[in-house]
């Protein structure tokens, strides 16, 4: 038996709450971004996070995935305290989530297939033939044509880059998926295809999805609950309850002309 040096992935936790944020305070160069923010993301739900420009959506995402240390407060992701996690424990947690960055963040010097294989190679010992099969599987899963695997990111369109980024995020079959504006910059048809894709994957893989978005169509099509970042804290509700919220920004967001058009459709 070969010694396992790479971390063994723990079985999925039975916890009901996938992400638990308590009393989060974030200050960026003196500016208060989040003021004692609490948030729970339930296992198996799709949570949409909305907010105006500069309301700290991206900061929240970066704090939750550990790219940025919070000024105060505690964050538990899949039951693990992210801000104190280090080394092997952190890697074990990182295997259980996938992150899709805004522009896909694909590694430019590698093909799409190689990009997808990066997490696989990092965490598992798999034979090359199987690695290629898995890459093809993920490429098909996100709806890219089979020949996309051999292409470099610079040869792909914006929508294809996002799909490829999603394929990489899904490489290890994570329990938790973070999406940063997945439909921004896509044409409406690609955007609604992307919504469907996320719905499909969420159902078939049983994912918990944390999605930062501006797109009201996406919110309507995919989310179970919506978290609105207003006044440096967060307000969670369903599309239904938030539409009737009295807060001026929320009211404007869900009752503005664009929102009405999307919601009435």
């Amino acid at each position: 038996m070969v010694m396992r040096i790479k971390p063994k992935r723990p079985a999925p936790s039975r916890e009901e709450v996938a992400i638990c944020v308590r009393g989060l305070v974030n200050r960026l160069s003196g500016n208060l971004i989040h003021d004692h923010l609490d948030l729970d993301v339930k296992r198996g739900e799709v949570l949409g996070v909305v907010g105006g420009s500069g309301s700290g959506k991206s900061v929240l995402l970066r704090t939750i995935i550990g790219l940025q240390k919070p000024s105060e407060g505690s964050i538990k992701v899949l039951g693990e305290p992210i801000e104190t996690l280090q080394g092997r424990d952190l890697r074990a947690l990182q295997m259980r989530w996938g992150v899709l960055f805004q522009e896909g963040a694909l590694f430019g010097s590698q093909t799409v297939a190689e990009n997808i294989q990066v997490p696989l190679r990092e965490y598992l010992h798999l034979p090359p033939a199987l690695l290629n099969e898995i890459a093809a599987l993920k490429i098909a899963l996100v709806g890219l044509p089979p020949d996309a695997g051999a292409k470099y990111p610079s040869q792909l369109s914006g929508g294809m880059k996002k799909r490829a980024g999603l394929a990489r995020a899904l490489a290890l079959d994570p329990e938790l998926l973070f999406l940063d504006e997945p439909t921004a910059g896509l044409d409406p048809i690609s955007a609604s295809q992307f919504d469907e894709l996320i719905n499909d994957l969420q159902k078939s893989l049983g994912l918990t999805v944390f999605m930062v978005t501006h797109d009201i169509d996406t919110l309507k099509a995919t989310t179970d609950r919506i978290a609105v970042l207003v006044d440096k804290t967060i307000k969670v509700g369903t599309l239904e309850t938030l539409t009737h919220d009295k807060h001026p920004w929320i009211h404007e967001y869900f009752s503005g002309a664009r929102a009405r058009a999307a919601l009435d459709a």
Partner: protein
Amino acid sequence: MTLSNTAENDTRAWFRTERRNDRLRVVFGGDWIIDEAATLDSSLQKLDLQATGDVDLDGTAISRLDSVGAWLLIRTGRALTEGGAHIRSLTIPEMYQPLIESLQREQDIKPVRVAREHPLTDFLVRIGKATQDAFQQGVQLLNFLGRLTVETVEAFIRPDRELPWPAFITQIEQTGVTALPIVGLLSFLLGVVLSYQGAEQLQRFGAQIFTVNLVGIAGFREIGGLMTAIIVAGRSGSAFTAQIGTMKLNQEIDAMQTIGLNPIEVLVLPRVLGLLVAMPLLTFYANIMCIIGGAVMCNFVLGITVPQFMRQLHDAMAFSPWSFWLGLMKAPVFAFIIALVGCFEGLRVEGNAESVGKLTTRAVVESVFLVITFDAGFSILFSMLGV
């Protein structure tokens, strides 16, 4: 009949085949997840799938299933079908049904082939490509030189648009004024080094006074200009490539063209002209600093006082009157090479940020190479002219 991977404990993935009256039944169980994929893959490959008639795939004992596990199941099913069998049923736990269904919809999942040549072939191909690239690039650089010349002449004779003077002044400041500390310090130190090494050798003949000639002639003729060119190539040539390259990535160059601005005139011309002015001035300054370095060294180590140094330098210059001007004459040529290569590489940036880095490095290497080559050419030319 049992084949490999029987259940050791309840989490390892396992499967077994049962054959009864030509009816094949494959039973799967345990965690069919990516962590188990390597072992599952190899044992599934070894499985004899030559079966005819009906086959049952029973996955009711599967405790966890992810997309890779589901793919392995589906792949096994397809291999059986290809072998002539008929899959009668595929049963898996209810909760994993959507996953299997969405994967089954994908008809053509074929392994992605990442083409990898033999390392030696690869190496030879790279050498060939690099050679071809080098030639092409030389041609392109000449094209660019031609275009720049034409557009410069046009810009000067065309009355309807003013030349970008503010950008020109900014370039002189950025490439010239801000380079003063580093050029000054390095030239001073080179003067020190030159006179120290010269004195060491010349002392043996009791000819240490000629250290002054060495520092003066070498400094004016070669070292000052060459050193300045190398520093400027590293400092400003690279900056040109990075600035223009970033603008190209950001589509700023495209935006300029659609507005009707000519990128050559707006971006390249001020840089070339700015450096053409800044370089000779910097070279002159470098020459002076080099002489000061030499003078300081001579004063402290050889005991040649500053007035003595100046008198000897004057004599040396009378003996070789062209040295100063020959050195200074080369500066505009070097300036032109550095600016031309820097802007040329910047405009070649394409695709991603990585290419900015690559071309910036290339701009520096190329301009230093060309500067030294031209310097060698000048040496030969001057010696033939006997100056």
